[in-house]
């Protein structure tokens, strides 16, 4: 279980990346969603012992991430945001190097690497230098590291950012093969819906909302999104020059006549509404 109490991260320039964040995670797959700069990566880096917090406490299975970092590191695997493999090394070499770094003997590391690459259908690419692999395959190398490590807890920071839809689907399939608990950050709403049982939404270093995808979308029940580019029209939110209002489904026709286009509610609407209660 992950327990975070009043966690705060303040950088030397005075900016806060996290502001008194507290939560407890006990689900198998948790997604932390939020826009760029929301504090997701900072939170992940603190939990996986890569970064020290300014104040507050975080524990993983009872181990303090500051005081018991060595024990935490035995439990967790952390795949950093936008991590790239070393171009001239092969997936097999990456896996073996990483597993040995986790204290696994080389012979055992080789066995596990073969198995993980096979599970993720990467056996054919096992000995190909990674700079010859597609973007999706490169990311799968890191998922394979996590899989082969057999870690209890895996942190995946934006595992599919920048990938095309097919590659993203490939990586999702790979993530589903992981056995341990997974905490992933993403700003792809459909990724959170596809993979996570528990979703935490962050904004400006704070937790804005939390729940299952259904619970988070509950406030939009019976509603649709009405969009227009005309700023003079009634609206509750704006994104660039798109002006948005949440309306009852039954009101759709009326709004279409006024020049709005009507869209179905998706998890993107959580971002748009930024945790604000919706009033029809």
């Amino acid at each position, binding site marked *: 279980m992950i327990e975070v109490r009043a966690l705060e991260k303040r950088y030397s320039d005075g900016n806060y990346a996290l502001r008194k964040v507290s939560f407890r995670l006990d689900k198998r797959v948790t997604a932390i969603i939020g826009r760029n700069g929301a504090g997701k990566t900072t939170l992940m*880096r603190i939990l*996986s*012992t*890569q*970064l*020290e917090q300014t104040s507050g406490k975080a524990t993983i299975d009872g181990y303090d991430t500051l005081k018991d*970092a*060595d024990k935490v*590191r*035995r439990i*967790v*695997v*952390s*795949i*950093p*945001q*936008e*991590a*790239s*493999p*070393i171009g*001239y*090394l092969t997936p097999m*070499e990456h896996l*073996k*190097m*990483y597993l*040995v*770094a*986790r*204290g696994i*003997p*080389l012979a055992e590391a080789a066995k596990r690497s073969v198995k993980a690459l096979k599970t993720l259908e990467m056996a054919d690419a096992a000995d190909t*230098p990674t700079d010859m692999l597609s973007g999706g395959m490169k990311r799968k190398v*890191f998922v394979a*590291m996590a899989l082969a490590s057999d870690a209890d807890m895996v*942190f995946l920071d934006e595992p599919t950012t920048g990938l095309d839809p097919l590659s993203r689907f490939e990586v999702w399939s790979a993530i589903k093969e992981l056995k341990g608990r997974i905490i992933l950050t993403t700003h792809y709403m459909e990724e959170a819906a596809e993979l996570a049982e528990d979703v935490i939404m962050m904004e400006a270093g704070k937790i804005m909302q939390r729940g299952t995808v259904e619970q988070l979308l509950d406030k939009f029940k019976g509603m649709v999104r009405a969009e227009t580019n005309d700023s003079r029209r009634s609206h509750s939110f704006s994104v660039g020059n798109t002006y948005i209002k949440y309306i009852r489904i039954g009101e759709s026709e009326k709004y279409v006549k006024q020049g709005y286009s009507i869209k179905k509610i998706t998890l993107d609407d959580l971002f748009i509404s930024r945790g604000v209660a919706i009033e029809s």
Partner: protein
Amino acid sequence: MNLKFIGTFTWYYGFRSIPRGPSYIISSIMYPLVFLFLITIFSAGKFIDYAVVGGFISIIGMNAIYSSSDIAFQRLQLKTQDLFVATSISSTDYMLAMAFSYLATSTPGIAVYAVIGLLLGLFTALNALALVVLLLLVLFGITSISFLVSGMIKHVRNVWGIAGILGVLLTVLPPVFYPYTILPKPLLYVFMISPVTPAAVLAQAAFGLGPFAPYAIAVLLVEIVVYTAIAKYTNHWREK
């Protein structure tokens, strides 16, 4: 210390890069060979021994200083360092793994110089042993400086430029390819900031190319300890 990691990393990151990226190896040999050629031509062969002995030190020093660009690139761009922070290895393991990887990539250059040295009849058992020890000390000293510098680099754009500047300052300007005795003393002392300088002074003495300067041993050892300690305690392994 995770010796298995250091060995595995060195094997894959160091030795495997030799056949897969030969241009890197060739470029690291080019500088010393060009200096050897120019010095031999301009000194009419008089300083060829200096250039050969200095070539060993230069190859190791240059490869080690260029590791700063790789270390920074791995930290900033590939995020390899972050990946390893959350494992059982320490920053010292990572530093040593990097240092030995660059020793591995230096081996083709060392082999070329060894052949030239043998052809010129430069080696005795004693001076060869002294050279090996000095090369290892240069490797550790310069790699520590590389870690120190790489931790200060904030943008990938600066990575290669800074390594290029340091390469010249720390491994070309010091008396590596010429007799240290021709340098004015104050300038020699300034160059002593690079571990390459005391190593070159001692190597020249070991090969009978210059007087023995015992203080250079102390300078070199102190520098290794100080640079390694600074690199260890100021690097960005687990960020604050």
